[in-house]
Each structure stands twice: as structure tokens, then as C-alpha cells.
């Protein structure tokens, strides 16, 4: 038995892949999360209303999703409905997170794979033409920064937002502040598209070179965004079957009836499945579950994507292309929303804390995220974090096995395998800090 161990980079957090090989056959492929801090344990006994400030610290990449999910869980427990303005500000927060995350995944995490570089910050060393290549990094960072600016505008703090509170938000967005960002986003939109067009071309070239889009076996898909419009204002989770038919639709409190969860001895992260079947969350799941994005440019890209790859599309490297479609969508939708009046008085409704149970659902960039709290005497008695990356664990391992089979023969191990492992994992854009908490 030979064990190959692959360290991972250009993903969030500490993880590695272990592949066991016997006589040229891949016996197992494990995705191992190596770190853990223990949020679900140390929030026990915390005053419930502090959760929206504590839980963003689960992850600095997905903090906005945790912030909003936490507030929604407490609102569910306290039986309070936030006003429209608060819902709009929160949707903007989620869009800011999506822009920041998809730009990071596309340009910082996966574009180097398409350019044969170790980092977007090192492209000038690996390529002949330093000037144009450097401008690529700067263009990419400029797009990514819009996400940060939107999070800051809608969330107050730039990494761990503070503006969502139980019952609403602390404040709206002033017209002049909205206008500044609006102008910047409108000016950048064409560059977003041209960066994505380049990325699409690079991906086609990669496909040409390696001869595959990766694991293309059917899977179940899970998302909480809309069907006829994408919309990041989740209330229900939907599951799509491998054949493209919707199999289930349920509110967050019923997730246990549909999703199975298991822990493993080889990872600090668990694995979930749809009744034992391989499940996929993240961009490809949302796109497979949407008939339209609801904004013009993103709809054009969706049409091009569907025309080329069909629906549902299964190959894993298409996750990356779907992130690009969503980046364009998030820009367009945020521009649409920033034009609205977001600075009126009705920021929040009063609430009375009470004991009980609450579920908060948001569509994080990596898929549906649920916070589930039990509250007793105003303190957290039990907390569960249902993490999108965990939904993808079985799918990641299956795709790793597919890559292993492709590049391992009884004669030798093809050196492309190491790169393939990186591409497989990055296609799912896993977040280890979240998956293990």
C-alpha cells in the first residue's frame, strides 16, 4: 500500500489530501481538515444576543454569512420579523460577500492554475510580459475590493460586520455613500465581464490541455437561492435530483429529515449527504437550480453556459465558471439595489427576548448555511452550525478518486496528479474554518 499526501494551498484554512494506492488502483481518497477551534462548544452559556458578534469569528472569509444567519436564528427564536429595509441591507451584505468570495476564488485561488503560476502575486515571475500580467492582478484585486466596500457599507465593519441586529439593522445607507459605490460599480462592470471572459477562455484552454472537466458523474444539488431569480434572501432549501428534477423543498428547521450527517476519524470536519447520496452545494448547485438569474448580463452568461454544458451540468470544473456568472449577477443586483432609497427611518422592530429554539438560514457563497440555537434563561444551551462545505465533503472525495484513477496506473503516477488534486479541491472552494468551526 502506498500513501500519497498532498498539502493544499489557495483554499481557506488547513487541509490535506491523502490517497491510498494499491497496485495502481486508488483505494481511498480522503480530504482531511486539520484544524479546529470548537465554537459549538465554547458558545455554550453565552448570552444569546452576543451570538451575532461571536459567530462571524468562525470565519473571516464567510463572516457576513454567519453574522446574518445568527441574527435570523435569534429572530426565529424570538418570533420577530425584520422590516423591509433590514432585509434589503442584509441582501446587500450577502451580495458583498459573494462578490468578495467569487472574485477571490476565481482570480486568487484558481486563475493561477490556468496560468501555471503559484500565485496571482507572482505572475510576473512566471510570464514573459510582466507589465500586462501585473495589471491582471491589479484589475482582479480592484474587482474583489468592491465586495469589501459593499460589506463595509452595509455591515459597518469590513470583515466581521456589526450592522445586522435582532429585529433589523442599526442603520440604513446614506444616499451619498450609496452613490459613491454605485458609480464605482457601474464603471467597473464591463471590466468584471472582460475578466470573466478571459477566465472562461483560460478554462476552455485548460480543458483542452487536460482533456476533462473533472468528475462528471451525476449528483444531488442543494441551494437556498431562488429558481426564477437567483436572489440571496433565503427562506427555503431546495434539493435537485441528478436528473434535474426538484426532489425536496423544506424550511431550515426540517434539515435533519433530509440530510444525513456523519463524523469521521480522519478529519475535524464531518460529512453530510442527501439520504446517503453524494450532495453538492455552492455555485454549480445554485446555477443548476435556477432557470434565470434575474439580471440581464448574468442571464446572457447563464444562457451561454446552459447552451454549452446542458442542465443540470455535472462536471466539477464548471463550479468555477458558475462563480463567474454569479460575480456578474452580484454586481448587477447590487447596482440595482443601491439605486433604491436605503436611508429611511424604519430600520428595526422591537423584540422581547424569550427562551426556545431558532433556525437561521442564509445562502453563503459556498451554499446554504444554517445556525440552530437552543436558548434557556437567555443563554445558549445548544448551538449547531450546518456548514455548506460539509455538504460537499463526499463530492470532493469522489472527485479526488476520479482524478486519482485518471492519473495513476500500475506503471506510474502521472505528475499531473498533484495539480489535479489542487484543481479538484479548489473547484469546491472549501472553507475549513467553517467546516470544523
Amino acid at each position, binding site marked *: 500500500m502506498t500513501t500519497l499526501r498532498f*498539502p*493544499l*494551498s*489557495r*483554499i481557506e*484554512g488547513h487541509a490535506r489530501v491523502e490517497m491510498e494506492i494499491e497496485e495502481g488502483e486508488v483505494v481511498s481518497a480522503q480530504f*482531511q481538515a*486539520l*484544524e*479546529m*477551534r*470548537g465554537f459549538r*462548544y*465554547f*458558545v*455554550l*452559556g*453565552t448570552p444569546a*444576543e*452576543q451570538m451575532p*458578534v*461571536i459567530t462571524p*469569528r*468562525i*470565519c*473571516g*472569509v464567510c*463572516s457576513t454569512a454567519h453574522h446574518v444567519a445568527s441574527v435570523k436564528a*435569534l429572530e426565529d427564536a424570538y418570533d420577530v420579523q425584520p422590516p423591509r429595509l433590514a432585509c434589503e441591507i442584509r441582501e446587500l451584505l450577502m451580495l458583498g460577500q459573494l462578490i*468578495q468570495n467569487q472574485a477571490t476564488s476565481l482570480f*486568487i485561488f484558481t486563475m493561477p492554475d490556468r496560468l501555471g503560476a*503559484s*500565485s*496571482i*502575486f507572482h505572475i510576473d515571475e512566471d510570464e514573459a510580459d510582466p507589465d500586462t500580467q501585473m495589471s491582471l*492582478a*491589479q484589475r482582479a*484585486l*480592484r474587482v474583489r*475590493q468592491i465586495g469589501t466596500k459593499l460589506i*463595509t457599507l452595509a455591515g*459597518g*465593519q*469590513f*470583515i*466581521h460586520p*456589526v*450592522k445586522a*441586529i*435582532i*429585529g433589523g439593522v*442599526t*442603520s440604513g445607507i446614506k444616499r451619498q455613500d450609496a452613490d459613491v459605490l454605485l458609480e464605482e460599480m457601474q464603471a467597473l462592470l464591463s471590466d468584471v465581464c472582460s475578466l470573466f471572459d478571459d477566465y472562461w477562455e483560460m478554462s476552455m484552454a485548460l480543458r483542452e490541455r487536460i482533456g476533462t472537466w473533472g468528475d462528471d458523474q451525476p449528483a444531488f444539488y442543494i441551494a437556498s437561492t431562488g429558481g426564477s431569480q437567483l436572489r440571496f434572501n433565503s427562506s427555503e432549501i431546495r434539493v435537485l435530483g441528478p436528473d434535474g428534477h426538484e426532489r425536496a423543498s423544506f424550511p431550515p428547521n426540517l434539515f435533519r429529515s433530509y440530510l444525513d450527517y456523519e463524523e469521521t476519524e*480522519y*478529519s*475535524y470536519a464531518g460529512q453530510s449527504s442527501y439520504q446517503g447520496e453524494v450532495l453538492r452545494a455552492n455555485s454549480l448547485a445554485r446555477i443548476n437550480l435556477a432557470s434565470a438569474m434575474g439580471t440581464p448580463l448574468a442571464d446572457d452568461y447563464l444562457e451561454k453556459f446552459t447552451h454549452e454544458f446542458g442542465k443540470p451540468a455535472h462536471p466539477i470544473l464548471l463550479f468555477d465558471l458558475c462563480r463567474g456568472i454569479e460575480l456578474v449577477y452580484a454586481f448587477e443586483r447590487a447596482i440595482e439595489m443601491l439605486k433604491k432609497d436605503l436611508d429611511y427611518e424604519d*430600520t428595526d422592530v422591537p*423584540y422581547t*427576548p424569550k427562551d426556545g429554539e431558532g433556525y437561521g438560514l442564509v445562502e453563503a457563497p459556498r451554499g446554504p448555511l444554517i445556525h440552530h440555537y437552543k436558548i434557556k434563561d437567555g443563554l445558549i444551551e445548544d448551538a449547531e452550525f450546518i456548514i455548506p462545505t460539509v455538504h460537499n465533503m463526499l463530492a470532493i472525495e469522489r472527485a479526488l478518486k476520479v482524478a486519482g484513477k485518471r492519473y495513476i496506473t500500475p506503471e506510474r503516477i502521472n505528475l499531473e496528479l498533484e495539480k489535479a488534486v489542487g484543481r479538484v479541491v479548489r473547484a469546491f472552494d472549501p472553507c475549513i*474554518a467553517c467546516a470544523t468551526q
Partner: protein
Amino acid sequence: MPEKKSLPRFAVLQLSGCSGCEVSLINATEWVEKYKLVYMPLVVSTHAIPDDTEILLVSGGVRNDEDVYNLRRAVSIVDRVVAVGTCAISGGISNLGDRDDVREIFTAQAARHHLPHLLPKSHPIDNFVDVDLYLPGCPPTPELLMAALTGPENFQASSIVCAECGRKKLKDMRPKHLLGFQQGKVLPDICLINQGYLCVGSSTRGGCRAICTRAGHPCVGCRGPSNAYIEKESQVWFDRVQKVFERMTDIPPEEIYEALHSPQLSLFLFQFTDYMGSDRKPRPKEKVL
């Protein structure tokens, strides 16, 4: 543009944390032209810190035995070590788990035999190595990170968050009780203490430009105590916050005392947990940005 090889070379070592400090660093784009990033697994596929690395930024707390090894090894290579963010400086939010009851369930349920062994608690990095500069914040802003790289002498800040906040303190607005941490309508432009929120910006280190309080959320003290308190024991900072509330409000002192001393208030006072119950020497203020 100067040749990249002559630029100062820096590495980012991430221990057990949330990546928020790294995200903040990527938000600061100015370093891209001025520094050469040689190691940072989040964005660079290089699996070792090169020997000629000058500056090491460390984020995250020491949570498992692999963290200890990676930290000591990295520090042995570089010239200058910067502890970035609350987790690296004081163990951070993970210290909420530094309670006997929680530790017991945690170690029983979380342990895995084939993975890096979890330590009973999260440690600040200076429990294991010498630190040249501390950069507190959860996370530090891009501006602060740039200041840590280029040199603190180029950075101007107020001593406390209050001075950077811009909300007005009113003499005749004296709340009788603390408001819930999340509760109530936040009035714009008026001091959050006047509105009854447990804001600790009056003695928290400035430099963050008061982003949270400006947005209407009480300061949770993520930058830790200001220079006036940083070299003293935690009780002095507690007393100071208590006094501010007694002076500005009619909230019963015991209500403030209780709120400040509840165990979860380590949330507000991130930086305190490592002073409490330990004989650690305080960090000299010259070393804190």
C-alpha cells in the same frame, strides 16, 4: 518599478484562526508593489518559508501541536516577527472555551487520533516565541497592517476609539439601565454610552478609526487596552470602564459591574482573557501598534 527581488520579503503564517487577518491583508492592496510576498498558503502555493524571508506576520492562536512546531520553525528563519490580530496576541475568541466545563466536553468529543493533537486551550504566540511587534484588532484594518509592514513611525492614531468615533457625548442624557447588546433603536451621532449600550471605546486602543461605533454598534474592545492601561493588570481597565459609566449614566454600578465581569464579557474584552489568572508580564506599549 523596482525589481521584485530587491523588495523586502515577507511571509504570512496562519495558525488556528479564521483567516480574517489574511483577508484584511488582501484588502490592503498597497503592499503588492512594495513587498514581495514569499509565503502565504491562502494565496500562494509555496509549501515552505524561504530562508531569506525578512518579516513574518503570524495570525491565529496556537491551538494544536502542529501550530507550535510551525510557529517555532518559522520564527527561527526570519528577522522580525509581528503578531497580527487578537488570536495571535491573546488567544482570541477561542478563549471563550477556556472554562473547565467546556474544555471537558471539547477534549472528549473533538479529539482525532490521526490529526494534529488539540491543546486544552488556545495560546498567544508569545507563550512560545519572542515577538517584535503586536498588532491587535479583530482583524486589524488594512491601514494598520500596512503600518505594521512599513513601520509604526508612519502611523498616526488617537489613543482611544472614543476620540476617533465622532459621536457626541451629551450631559443630560443619562440612561438608568444598560440596554441589551443588540436591543433598541440606535440614534445617529449620539454617544452609545448615552444611549445605554455597553461600549468600551472609552479605553480601547485607537487606530481602527472607530468603524463599529460609527456604524452604530458598541465597541467590543477588539484592539485591547489603550497605552494608559496596557501595562497594568486587567482590573485597572475594568475599573476605568466602570468609572466612565458611573460618570456618564445613572445605571446602578452593580449592573455595570456584573455585565463587565460575566464570563462571556471576554467577548467585549478580547484582550483580557490572557491576563486573567496568569502571571504573564504585560506587553510593553512600545511594542504595540
